C-alpha cells in the first residue's frame, strides 16, 4: 500500500543575520527514509517534534514533493497523481480541521461528498453508519466552530472516511482529547482496521494509542527512520525497567539495596529501579525488612518511559546498541520484509525474517537503523551492566528538533517578529522528558482558527465598495 524508497526532503531556510544580510541554509527534514506498509496493516509512527513525521505524511499524501527517492502509495505517485490518489485515501489532521468553520457539520459532510463524488445512495448509507459509530447525531447541525474538540475530531474522521478510502492517514488525531473521546476514537479505528481492512497509518505522541492499536511501530528521529518493528521488541530493546515506588514512614536517606538502583526521592517517597533479571519479590521483601515502609508500589515499564528514554538519548544508539548486544537482529521488520501479518498481528514471532542470519540482517538493518559505532556486539552476560551505563548517560539531543520549527516561517516571512504573531501554523507541542504522551493536558484550542493574522488591515486600499468584502465585519 505504501512504499517509500530512500526518500529525502530538505528545505532551504533563509535566516536573517543582521540588518541586511540573509543566509541560506539547507535543512534536511527527512533523510533516506524507506519503509513498506502492506494493505490492511495498522502502523504507528512516532518521533520527537521536528523529527520529520509531518513531512513524511505530507509526502505520502502529495502535499509535498520529495527532494529525492520514490514514494508510491496505492500504486500511485503522490506528487504526480495527487487527485487520483486523494480519492483513495483519507487524511485527518489533529491540529487543524478539514471541515469548514462556519458550516454545520451536516453541510460540511455534504460538501465532502461532492468533492469526492460519492453518489447519493452510497453517501446516505455511509453517513448513517458513521453517524452511528461515531455518535455524531447530537451535533450534526451545529456549526463546526461551535463544536468541542472531541466532536470536531469525530467529525473530521467521518469526513475522511465518507468515501470509503483504502488508506487512512492520521496526524496526531488524539491530541488534546478527553479520555472518553480517545477511547471512542481508538475503538473506532480498531474496528475500522479489523472489519473493513482499511490500512491505517497513525502518527501520534500518545503512546496509549500505540499500545492499544498498533503492533508495528516506526520511529523517526532527526529525519531518519530509527526503528521499524514490533512494539514489544522496542520495549525490550530500550531496556526499560520496572520501577519500585516506596513510601517511607518518614523522609530518609536514599535506600540502598542490591538489585535496585536509587533514582530519586521526594520527601518520604522514593523511586527505585529494579534491574531486569532481578527478582522483584525479593527486592520488595528486602525493603520491607530493612526500612520502615508505609507503602510500596511496583510499576511495569511504561511505554512512555521507553520512548522518552529513546527520544532523550537518541534512538539509534540506544536501540542499535541494545539490539546488537541482545542479539535481536533478526527481529527487525525492516524495509525488505519481515513485516507483521496484516490485521491483527500477534506476538513477536516473525518467522519470515531470517533470524540468526547476521549477514542478511545487517543488510536489512542498514537502511533502517543507524549504527553509530558504539554498539559492539557483546555477549549475553555483559548485557545488564552495559545497558545500565548507557541509560544513565545524560544526553540531551532534542534541541535539534527546535531548529526544525524555525525552518518553516522564515522562508515565508522575512521578519522574525512575524513568528510570534502568526506565521507558524504547524507549531508542534514541545516534548518534555517524561511527559511524552500526556495528551490530555494540552488542549489545542481551535488551532485551525486564524492564528493571529496580521492586525486587521481593513480597507485594504482597494476599491471602496469592495472593501466591504474584505473587512472582517462583513464576512
Amino acid at each position, binding site marked *: 500500500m505504501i512504499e517509500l524508497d530512500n526518500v529525502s526532503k530538505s528545505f532551504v531556510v533563509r535566516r536573517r543575520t543582521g540588518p541586511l544580510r540573509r543566509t541560506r541554509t539547507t535543512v534536511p527534514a527527512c533523510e533516506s527514509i524507506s519503509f513498506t506498509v502492506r494493505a490492511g496493516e495498522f502502523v504507528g509512527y512516532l518521533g520527537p517534534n521536528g523529527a520529520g513525521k509531518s513531512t513524511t505524511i505530507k509526502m505520502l499524501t502529495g502535499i509535498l514533493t520529495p527532494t529525492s527517492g520514490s514514494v508510491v502509495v496505492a500504486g500511485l505517485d503522490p506528487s504526480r497523481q495527487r487527485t487520483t490518489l486523494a480519492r483513495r485515501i483519507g487524511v485527518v489532521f489533529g491540529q487543524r480541521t478539514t471541515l469548514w468553520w462556519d458550516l454545520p457539520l451536516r453541510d460540511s459532510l455534504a460538501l465532502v461528498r461532492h468533492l469526492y463524488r460519492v453518489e447519493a445512495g452510497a453517501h446516505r448509507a455511509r453517513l448513517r453508519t458513521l453517524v452511528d459509530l461515531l455518535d455524531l447525531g447530537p451535533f450534526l447541525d451545529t456549526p463546526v466552530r461551535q463544536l468541542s474538540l472531541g466532536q470536531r475530531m469525530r467529525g473530521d474522521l467521518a469526513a475522511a472516511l465518507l468515501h470509503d478510502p483504502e488508506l487512512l492517514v492520521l496526524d496526531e488525531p488524539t491530541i488534546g482529547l478527553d479520555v472518553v473521546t480517545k477511547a471512542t476514537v481508538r475503538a473506532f479505528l480498531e474496528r475500522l482496521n479489523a472489519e473493513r481492512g482499511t490500512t491505517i497509518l497513525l502518527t501520534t505522541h500518545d503512546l496509549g494509542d500505540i499500545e492499544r492499536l498498533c503492533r508495528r511501530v516506526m520511529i523517526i528521529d532527526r529525519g531518519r527512520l530509527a526503528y521499524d518493528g514490533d512494539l514489544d521488541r522496542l520495549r525490550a530493546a530500550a531496556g526499560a525497567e520496572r520501577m519500585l515506588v516506596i513510601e517511607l514512614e518518614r523522609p530518609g536517606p536514599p535506600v540502598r539495596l542490591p538489585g535496585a538502583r536509587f533514582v530519586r526521592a521526594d520527601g518520604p517517597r522514593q523511586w527505585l529501579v529494579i534491574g531486569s533479571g532481578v527478582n522483584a519479590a525479593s527486592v520488595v521483601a528486602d525493603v520491607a525488612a530493612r526500612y520502615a515502609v508505609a507503602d510500596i508500589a511496583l510499576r511495569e515499564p511504561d511505554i512512555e518511559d521507553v520512548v522518552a528514554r529513546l527520544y532523550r538519548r537518541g534512538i539509534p544508539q540506544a536501540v542499535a546498541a541494545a539490539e546488537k548486544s541482545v542479539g535481536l537482529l533478526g527481529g527487525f521488520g525492516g524495509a525488505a520484509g519481515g513485516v507483521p501479518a496484516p490485521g491483527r498481528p500477534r506476538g513477536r514471532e516473525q518467522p519470515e525474517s531470517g533470524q540468526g542470519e547476521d549477514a542478511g540482517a545487517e543488510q536489512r538493518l542498514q537502511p533502517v537503523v543507524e549504527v553509530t559505532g558504539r554498539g559492539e556486539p557483546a555477549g549475553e552476560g555483559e548485557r545488564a551492566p552495559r545497558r545500565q551505563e548507557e541509560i544513565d548517560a545524560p544526553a540531551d539531543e532534542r534541541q535539534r528538533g527546535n531548529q526544525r520549527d524555525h525552518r518553516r516561517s522564515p522562508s515565508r516571512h*522575512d*521578519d522574525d*517578529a*512575524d513568528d510570534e504573531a502568526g506565521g507558524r501554523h504547524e507549531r508542534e507541542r514541545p516534548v518534555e522528558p517524561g511527559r511524552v504522551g500526556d495528551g490530555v493536558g494540552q488542549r489545542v484550542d481551535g488551532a485551525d482558527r486564524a492564528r493571529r493574522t496580521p492586525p486587521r*488591515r481593513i*480597507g485594504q486600499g482597494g476599491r471602496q465598495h469592495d472593501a*466591504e468584502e474584505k473587512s*472582517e*465585519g*462583513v464576512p
Partner: protein
Amino acid sequence: MTYPWVMWYAMRRYAAYRVGALSEAVTNTVFGFLRAYILIALWHARPALGGYDVTDAVTFCFLTQALIGPVQIFGGMELTERIRTGDVAIDLHRPVDLQGWWLADDLGRAVFALLFRGVPPLLAGIVAFHLHPPGPGRWAQFAVAVLLAMLVGFGVRYLVALWVFWLHDDRGVQAIALVAALFFSGMLLPLVVFPGALGAIAVHLPWAALIQVPADVFLGKAGYFGLHGGAGLLGAYAFQAAWAVTLLVAGRLLTGAARRKLVIHGG
C-alpha cells in the same frame, strides 16, 4: 500610566507588518493617481468647482488616500471579534477602562498607519503632480486636524463595534456604517462637489470631520463653507472636537450599558 504603553505596544505590533502596510500604501497610491486623473477631467469641465482649483482637487485626492489608513475609513475594529467570541468579558473585568484601552490601541495603530500608509501616497502625489506643499505652519495645523479626525474615527467605529453586544450579526450595521463613511467623508468626491441640500447636510455629519475637514485645513480652505463661521480654522477644530466629544461620551455610556448587560446576562 498604562495608556501610553498600550499605544506604544500597538504601534510595535503593527510595525511587525510593515511590509504589508507598505504594499497597501502602494495600492493606495495607485488609486490616488487614478482618482487624480478623474478629478482633473472633472475640473476641466467645471473649473473652480466648489471653490477648488485643479491643484486643490488633486491635492485633496491624495490627502484622502493618505488618510485612509490613519482614520480607517473602511471601518472595523478588533474589538468586534473579541465581543463575538466573548473574550471581551476578560477585558471588562480588568481594572482598565475598556474605551480608554481601545482608544490608546487605536491611536497607536493610527500613528503607525500615518507613517507607513499616509506618507507614501502624499509624497508620490506631490512629486508626480507638482503640487505645492504648504509651509510648516500649515502642516502643524493639519497635524492637529488629523489628530482630531483620528479621535472622531475611533468614536464612530467604537460605537459600531459595541453594537455587536446587542445584535449578534453585525454585518448589517457594518455595511451601513461603511456606506455612510465613504459617502459622507469626502472619499468619493470632495463634499464641495455635492449639490445643494445634500452637500449642506453632509458637512454637518461626523464623517466630514474624518477627511473633508483635515483636507480643507491642509488646503487652507477651512471654513470656506462658511459653516464654521468666521473663525475658520478654529471653527473647523471646534467642529471636529464637538463630534469627538459627543461620540466618546456616547461610547462611554454604551460601554456602561454593555457591562451591565454582561453582568446581568452573563455575556
